[in-house]
Structures are given as structure tokens and as C-alpha cells.
């Protein structure tokens, strides 16, 4: 792979949590039980937009087995992941804004009693008009969903950015193409529903076990909503059965479990049903995008003009960050000098949209990769050639000031095209069969943080002793992506020890030092850097001890294969653990810390701090489809991917991320869509009716790495969690165009839409001939 000679890094490593998950031994939040523990359930609104006139909980309180009932007026403190713009309450206060919003909660001796009690809560509402689309919410005279919203009407946020001179660029272009694209309302569908267990001890300290991506944000939110000192709150992340961004915001059940536990004086578990998960939502924003791209005679991009309307649902969430992410994601992975961006996020009476794998990137990527494909075809060039010409080189700075310190995107394009036979197939397959190419990228961490402090974004502490071995303490959260394994592998490589001997303690605010959490594909680079520095600092302490034992200078020592030895004279070696013993005998406990903060960058425009990343991962995909032109079924048969994730730390884990990304993106392209009734009710909030791909739908997947090593990253690594989903959807859409000559601009491509489009095409061809 790379020229680097590693013992642990880059070798497929079985995760320690793997066998435990297979055997049901890995502990998830719902496995946690305490004596006297109660079960909390949530009463949800059966109206999408209304003022709450009254809530009568007396009958519920009177039900035997009910220990506490809670309503919104008892917890009127607003919170939000964007602390400057809090919009949410643990339970609706004065108003409900979507059908299924939490309005009251009950803790009872068992779930059945709690659910029965919910039916006894009587709520009187004064109905308000329901807006299920941005169009309705923006109509003149529409009622404001958030009365204190600073922006006009139901605009949650709006912003523009302008670089270069787009109008001038289009004027001088050889060809300009504009289309309107629409993305769909989709949910992450992580396997494990939200679950939190809260317990107050006799001294009033709160312990909460939850399935979250962001224990430290949860920590601040709990302190705010419960009005407690942070040092009295202990957040413990349990096993996490997937998050994909959906657990990257505080969820109502977490706050409700803590509030109910305090009120009832007993531990309380609040477990969501799948329907609750769909209502908590935070899935991908549907965006209607009018996008215009110009090229010159050579196919070089002259400018991009983007106008997007995001359907945000009822609350703020990550919305404003995602809005600026879409702005940042217009530039790469191509070199573009003129870019105009305008976007607004609209409140509607639906479950709130938020962060979902590849957030901010997937929608603009869909539009741009589709447009570039069409432009290439229209000007008689191969889409590969056009994309390759415009692709950024080994390093790059965008007009918006994002600095890419390392990119092998061109290699990704070459490798995916070569491995798939794209050039031999594109435009040459029989009607109904097609191949499509798309590229993409994602950030590996973000320079901007919503955690209101300037402390390092990631920190780690390592303790080494002869009894317990090596323990890495890090606030990073393993949500199933395998970060505990990756961090343990890095420590193992540094110390020259086998991976199995490293223990990783993560996701616990009382035990491990601070980390922002798992999102923005940041953990390998950020927490990895912190762990590497901590390990280096441990070695700094050990080497002088070894040096004296061996009689050589410290700078020629290396730790490898259980030994510390001189690189010049291998026979001068000493057992690693012997050195540890001598160090501790002489100095006491052996610990060291390390931390990491990405370089801060900004610019002179609105949103300028958002979207910067220390480094970036890239991916290109060639996707083949087979369309049944009589039934309209689109079958993805093969995806050939080439990815630049830097040095893969645990290659088998990267493969898992890439394959998962492809299947997830394919679901959004072809099947998935949350449907909403006129009254704002979700029509398919179950896995029966909301259709994620099954094992039988998965195409042949040929994923490969391109040779890559980012010298400024820990062991050369970048990211693979969110970059590989970027090309998936446009590659499918481009393949469908190649197969039947129809340019779809709206997700998902259902069989019905295919048949309708084929009819339309026939009609038009008939008119032409």
C-alpha cells in the first residue's frame, strides 16, 4: 500500500466488540437495569401545529403504578445544538409544531402502565394552520411557526456568499446548463433506537447512560435544562447501534429520562420505538436546488450558481451549520473560481431535519455531478475527461479559503474508471443498461465548533503500568464505526505492542478527557492525533530510562515488537515492560496526555468559519444499472469505487464504511422516502413501509484504495465515513441517464417515475419525428 512499514496500522484488525456483539454480550442502553427502575413513555401530539390550551394529567397520575408525570411548563428552558439559537424544549411548551411532538411524559413501574397512562392525559389544543412544505410555510400571511424567529416569516435562516464574478463568467462561457433538483426526506435508520437511563444518587448527582454520538454536548444540555452544575452530571455512552448523525444531537428522551428520574426519585429508562425514532428524526434535509454551471470550450468549469431552499422541519437543530456546509461543498473536488450561493432554511410542521451521514454534501453533490455529466455529454466530451480536467491537484485552496493540504482525487477518478471499464461501456451499452460516474469528497473534521469554549477539540490520556497494561482514555465515541479499534491500533503501533494488549476507555465524561464527539468524520484525525501525541509523550518519559539501561542516547531508540531498542544496533534492546517497571519504580505512575485542535481559518464573509477542515477524503464511483423498461425497476448491479482515505488504519473497517455508504446512498436514490399527510402525520414511520435496501438489493461492490498518505495526519489517515456516500446517488442517476436517456432530477427514482418518464420521452420523440 504505502511505503511506510507498520506492524499494526494498515492490517485488518478484528474488533474487540465484534464477537461480543455477535454473542449479545455488548451492552446497549436498553440492557441496563437498576433496582426500582421505572419506564418512561412520551405522550405525543396528535396535531401538527397548535397552541396548547390545557393539559390535564390528573387521571394519569391516579393510575396505579404511575410514579411521575411531567409536562412542558415544568421544563420551560430552550436548548439546541447551536447554542446561540436554541429553539427546542424537552416537552412542548405552549405550542406544538409537528404531529407527534412530545407533550407530556410518564414514568411508571412498567412500560405497559406508562403507555396506559398516556391515554389518560387530556390535552386541549387550539389548532393553527399546518405547513408541510416550504412553499406553504413561505406563503404570504403564513403564521410564524416560531414567533420569536428573527428572520421574516418561516425562514429559519438565510445566507449568501459570492466569490469571483459569476455573471461575467457565464457570459463568457461556451455552454451553461441550469436545472432544478429535489432531494427527498429520508431518515438514517440506524439499527438501535434511542434509549437513555438516568439515575440520581443520594447526593443528587446524575448518572446517565445513553446511546449518543456527543456525550459532552449532552453534558452541557443536561446542565442547562436541569439547571445543575456540570460537575454533578456523569454521562456514559453505552454500546451504540449506529448513529449516522441521528444521535449527533441531544434527543428528547435523554432529557426526559433525567427530568422524570429527578421527579420520581427513581432511575428511569426511556426507550424509543421505531416510530419515535422517525419522529425524533434529524434526517437529511430535502432541498430544492436551482443550480447553474458554465464551462468553457475545453470543458473547464467557469462558474457555479446555487439557489437552495431547505425544508428544515419544525426546529433548528444542526440546520444553520448544514446550510453553510452546503455552501462550502459547492467548491470541491473541482477547481472553481466563481461561485455564487444563496440558501434559506424553512420551518415546516414536520419532524426536524438535521445531520445525516455526509451532511451538507450529498444534496449539492447530487446536483453538481448530475449537471457535469450532462454538460460533458452535451458538449461531446466524456464525463470522465471533464471531471478529470477540473479535479483539484495534490493540494488546493478554494476561492472561499478552504485549504486542502492533501488530495489524491485524480487517482480516484482514474482507478474507478479503469477498474470498471467505464470508457468502454459509457454510451455504448444496450438500451436499459447504463454506467454512471461521479466523484465526491468530505471533510475530516471541522475547524468550527459549537461547543462554547476554546479548549482542544480532542484530548487523550494514556496510562501505562505493569498490572493493567496500556489504557487509552479518550472522549471520542465509538458508535459502531470502530473508533476504539482505530485509536487502540494507533497506540499499539506507537508502543510496538500487539493491539490486543491495549485497552480503550471512551465515551465517558467522568473518566476520559474531553472530545467534541463523533460527527464530521473527525475522530480518526482529531482523536487519533491526540492519542498519538499522548503516546509520544509516554515514550518521551520511557526512553531516557531505556537509554540509561542500554547505554545509548534516547534519540536512537525505537519501540517495536515489545522491545525498546537502538535503531543502529538491534542487540541493544530491552523489554518494553521492563522499562515501564523501572520508570514507575523510580518516578511513580506513568501517564501522559495529548490533544488536538485543527488549524483555525476564517474569511471576510458570512459563515466563513464553517466548512474548514484539517484534511479531506475523496472518492469516485462508477455505477452500473440495469433497468426493466416494462416495469420501471432500476437495479444497481455493480459499483466500482476508488477511495482516497489517506492511509487506511484498519482497512476492513474502511471497506465496511464504503460498502455501507453505497447501500445507504442507494436506498435514498431508489427506495426511501418519509411520506407526510396533509395534516402533517407521517404515513410510513415503520420499517415495513419505509424501505431501506435489503441484502438482496445490494449490488456487487468493488471497492479499492488509491495509494495515499497525508504526511500531516496521524499515520497518514484521513476519513472514510462520509466521503464515500457523496458520489453514490449521482452515479446512479448518471447511470440511469446512460441507460434510458432520461435525466432524473428528483429522488427517489421509483418504477412509476421511470415508466412515466419513458412515456414522456416517447411522446417527445414522436413529436420530433
Amino acid at each position, binding site marked *: 500500500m504505502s511505503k511506510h512499514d507498520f506492524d499494526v496500522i494498515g492490517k485488518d484488525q478484528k474488533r474487540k466488540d465484534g464477537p461480543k456483539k455477535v454473542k449479545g454480550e455488548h451492552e446497549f442502553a436498553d440492557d441496563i437495569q437498576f433496582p426500582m427502575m421505572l419506564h418512561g413513555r412520551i405522550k405525543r401530539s396528535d396535531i401538527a401545529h397548535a397552541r396548547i390550551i390545557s393539559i390535564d394529567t390528573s387521571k394519569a397520575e391516579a393510575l396505579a403504578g404511575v410514579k411521575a408525570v411531567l409536562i412542558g411548563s415544568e421544563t420551560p428552558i430552550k436548548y439546541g445544538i447551536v447554542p446561540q439559537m436554541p429553539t427546542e424544549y424537552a416537552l412542548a411548551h405552549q405550542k406544538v409544531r409537528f404531529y407527534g411532538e412530545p407533550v407530556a411524559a410518564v414514568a411508571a413501574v412498567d412500560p405497559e402502565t406508562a*403507555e396506559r397512562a398516556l391515554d389518560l392525559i387530556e390535552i386541549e389544543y387550539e389548532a393553527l394552520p399546518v405547513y408541510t412544505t416550504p412553499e406553504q410555510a413561505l406563503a404570504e400571511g403564513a403564521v410564524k411557526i416560531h414567533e420569536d424567529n428573527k428572520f421574516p416569516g418561516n425562514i429559519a435562516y438565510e445566507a449568501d456568499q459570492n466569490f469571483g464574478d459569476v455573471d461575467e463568467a457565464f457570459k463568457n462561457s461556451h455552454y451553461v446548463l441550469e436545472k432544478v433538483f429535489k432531494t427527498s426526506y429520508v431518515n438514517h435508520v440506524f439499527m438501535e433506537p434511542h434509549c437513555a437511563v438516568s439515575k440520581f444518587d443520594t447526593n443528587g448527582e446524575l448518572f446517565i447512560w445513553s446511546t449518543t454520538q456527543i456525550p459532552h454536548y449532552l453534558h452541557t444540555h443536561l446542565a442547562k435544562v436541569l439547571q445543575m452544575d456540570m460537575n454533578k452530571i456523569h454521562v456514559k455512552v453505552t454500546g451504540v447501534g449506529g448513529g449516522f448523525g441521528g444521535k449527533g444531537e441531544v434527543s428528547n428522551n435523554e432529557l426526559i429520562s433525567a427530568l422524570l428520574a429527578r421527579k420520581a426519585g427513581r432511575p428511569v429508562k426511556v426507550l424509543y420505538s421505531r416510530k419515535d425514532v422517525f419522529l425524533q428524526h434529524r434526517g437529511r434535509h430535502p432541498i430544492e436546488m436551482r443550480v447553474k454551471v458554465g464551462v468553457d470550450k475545453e470543458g473547464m468549469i467557469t462558474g457555479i450558481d446555487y439557489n437552495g431552499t431547505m425544508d428544515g422541519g419544525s426546529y433548528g437543530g444542526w440546520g444553520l451549520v448544514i446550510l453553510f456546509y452546503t455552501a462550502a461543498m459547492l467548491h470541491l473536488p473541482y477547481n472553481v473560481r466563481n461561485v455564487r450561493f444563496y440558501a434559506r432554511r424553512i420551518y415546516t410542521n414536520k419532524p426536524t431535519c438535521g445531520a445525516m451521514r455526509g451532511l451538507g454534501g450529498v444534496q449539492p453533490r447530487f446536483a453538481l455531478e448530475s449537471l457535469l455529466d450532462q454538460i460533458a455529454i452535451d458538449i461531446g466530451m466524456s464525463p470522465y475527461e471533464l471531471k478529470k480536467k477540473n479535479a483539484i491537484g495534490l493540494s488546493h485552496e478554494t476561492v472561499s479559503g478552504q485549504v486542502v493540504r492533501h488530495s489524491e482525487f485524480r487517482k480516484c477518478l482514474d482507478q474507478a474508471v479503469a477498474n470498471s471499464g467505464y470508457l468502454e461501456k459509457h454510451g455504448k451499452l444496450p438500451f436499459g443498461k447504463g454506467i454512471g460516474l461521479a466523484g465526491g469528497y468530505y471533510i475530516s473534521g471541522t475547524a468550527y465548533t459549537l461547543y462554547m469554549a476554546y479548549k482542544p477539540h480532542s484530548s487523550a490520556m494514556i496510562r501505562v503500568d505493569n498490572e493493567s497494561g496500556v489504557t487509552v482514555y479518550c472522549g471520542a465515541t465509538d458508535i459502531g464505526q470502530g473508533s476504539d479499534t482505530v485509536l487502540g491500533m494507533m497506540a499499539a503501533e506507537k508502543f510496538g505492542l500487539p493491539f490486543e494488549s491495549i485497552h480503550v476507555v471512551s465515551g465517558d465524561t467522568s473518566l476520559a478527557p474531553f472530545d467534541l464527539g463523533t460527527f464530521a468524520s473527525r475522530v480518526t484525525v482529531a482523536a487519533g492525533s491526540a492519542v498519538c501525541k499522548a503516546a509520544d509523550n509516554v515514550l518521551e518519559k520511557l526512553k531516557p530510562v531505556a537509554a540509561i539501561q542500554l547505554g545509548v542516547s534516547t534519540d536512537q531508540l525505537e519501540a517495536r515488537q515489545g522491545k525498546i531498542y537502538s535503531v543502529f544496533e538491534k542487540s541493544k534492546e530491552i523489554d518494553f515492560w521492563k522499562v515501564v517497571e523501572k520508570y514507575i519504580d523510580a518516578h511513580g505512575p506513568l501517564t501522559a496526555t495529548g490533544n488536538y485542535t485543527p488549524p483555525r481559518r476564517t474569511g471576510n464573509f458570512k459563515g466563513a468559519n464553517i466548512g474548514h477542515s484539517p484534511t479531506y477524503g475523496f472518492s469516485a464511483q462508477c455505477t452500473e444499472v440495469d433497468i426493466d423498461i416494462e416495469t420501471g425497476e432500476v437495479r444497481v448491479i455493480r459499483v466500482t469505487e476508488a477511495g482516497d482515505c489517506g492511509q487506511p488504519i484498519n482497512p476492513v473497517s474502511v471497506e465496511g464504511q464504503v460498502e455501507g455508504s453505497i447501500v445507504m446512498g442507494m436506498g435514498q436514490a*431508489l*427506495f426511501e422516502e418519509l411520506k407526510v399527510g396533509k395534516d402533517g402525520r407521517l404515513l*410510513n414511520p415503520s420499517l415495513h413501509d419505509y*424501505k431501506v435496501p435489503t441484502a*438482496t438489493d445490494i449490488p456487487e461492490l468493488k471497492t479499492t484504495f488509491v495509494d495515499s498518505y497525508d504526511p500531516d495526519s496521524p499515520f497518514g489517515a484521513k476519513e472514510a465515513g462520509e466521503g464515500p456516500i457523496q458520489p453514490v446517488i449521482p452515479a446512479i442517476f448518471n447511470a440511469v441517464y446512460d441507460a434510458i436517456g432520461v435525466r432524473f432530477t428528483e429522488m427517489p427514482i421509483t418504477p412509476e417515475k421511470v*415508466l412515466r418518464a419513458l412515456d414522456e420521452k416517447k411522446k417527445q420523440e414522436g413529436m420530433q419525428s
Partner: protein
Amino acid sequence: MHCEPFEYEKPVSLREFESLYAAKGEDAKILAGGTDLMVLIKEKLLAPRLLIDISDLHELQGISFDSRQGLTIMAGTKIAEIERSALVKEHAPALAYAAANLGSNQVRWMATMAGNICHASPAAETPPVLLAHDCELIIGKQGGERTLPISRFFLSYRKTALEPGEYLKAFRLPPLPERSAVAYRFKGLRRAMEIDMLNIGAYLELSEEGQSVSDIRLAMGSVGPTTYRATATEQRLKGMQIDDEFFATACGGVVQEASPIDDVRASAEYRNRVIGVLTRRALEECLEIIASRGNKA
């Protein structure tokens, strides 16, 4: 999820079951695999006072074949067993195929074919094939039995011809005559775990010279309140030569006899359009099977 409390009985002999069901039938529901019933109870669409679990009744288990009566499948047989049975694969391969496409592996090891037809969903997997086979149902009741052709079993949306106190005991698929075959086609959005947007079972029997239709049955699902046969089309097709006109008549006919609605899974327009395609493909498959058998013989 909480549901209304119910009592639960699990008889161990058919006699015990029959007398219990006769006594308590009014308030009771038969529980086979529970993969439909428990969903309805949890969604509070049903609140029976008593569930009688029939999964321990060995008298209701098993698959057998004899050349006179054909294939007999007892009501309590799991879908997964039907899917895997060598007898079913030999004598009713389309049924094995339909069974293999019902739900997931986990569901198939719980679910029964009796549950599938007694639930009487118009989108169910096995009814089109059973109708194509013109299967006979053996219906039990304390101290008695009657038989009913499956074509008279589905009365309307989720309503069957079972009288109070009656239960389904067995399916009997008559032996297929020479030069005949059954095929099953379905369409869902994804490839598994789907409630079909459309499905069709086709039976085709050719005349002795092998050129024309001596008998045909076309059973369609998801295009009306129950699974039903396109009987007018069948009449028109009988005696026709196998040629383009035959296919055109079949496809045009089923579209005319279908009366689909728009729902979350598909529009009526789509269903009308694709039911003809599935019909043609099912009939082509029947012809292929008949031809390949002829070659072998």
C-alpha cells in the same frame, strides 16, 4: 407496546383444540405464527379475549403427496418448510418460489400458509399460486369437515368464507395434468421483505397437439379487495392458439378485470400498466416449463 390483555391456550391434540374452539370460538382467535395477528393486536386493531395457539398440533403438520389426490399441505406447516420441501418443489414449484419470497427468513419460520390466506390480504404471497392450482381447502369444525375450492374462499377485503367455529385444516393441490404448468410473478419496490405492489399466479394447460389452450387460470393480487381470478379473460383464452393474439388478449384482459386503487405502495395507473407485463411473463414461463418437460420426456 402495550395491548389489551388476553388469555392464551395451547392445546396439544386436535380434539382438545376443536372442543375449545367450538366452546370459545366467539371470543377466540387462532394463533398460528402470529406474524399477522400479533401485529394487529399490537396496533390495537383487534382485541381478542383468547388466543388459541395451534403450533403444537402435530395433526396439522406435514406435507404429503399421492398421485390421485395430489399434494396435501396441513394448515400448521411453516412457510419455510413449504419453501424447502422436495415434494413441493417437484409438484408445485411456483408455490415453493412464492413461499421463498414471503417476508424474511425469520418470518418464514414463524408464518404458516393458513395464516397467509386466513388473513386474506389482497397483497398476500401464496393466494395467487393457490388459485392458479385451483387448490381445494379442507375446512374443519368440531366433529366434521367440508371441502371448498379456494376460488370461493375470499369474500372481500380480509373476509373469508370460514363460518364461526370453522378452521382451516389442510390445502390439497390436485396433481397437474400433462402439458400444464403454474408460474408466479410479483413486483415490489425492493427485492425482499416487501408487501407486493402486484402479483400474479398463472396456470396454463395446453391441448394435446400442444398448440392451443385447453385450460387457463389467472389469479391477480393487489389489484382489488381480494386476490381473484380474471375469469372472463380465462374464458376468452380457452381454445386460443398460442400466438401474439393470445398474449395480447391475456394482457389486455387482466387489465380490464383489474380494479386497483392508489395506495402508499403504488398508483392504480402503475398497477394497471404492469399487471399485463407480469401476466405475459408468467405465461411465457408456463410455456417454457411445459416445453422443457416435453423435451425431457
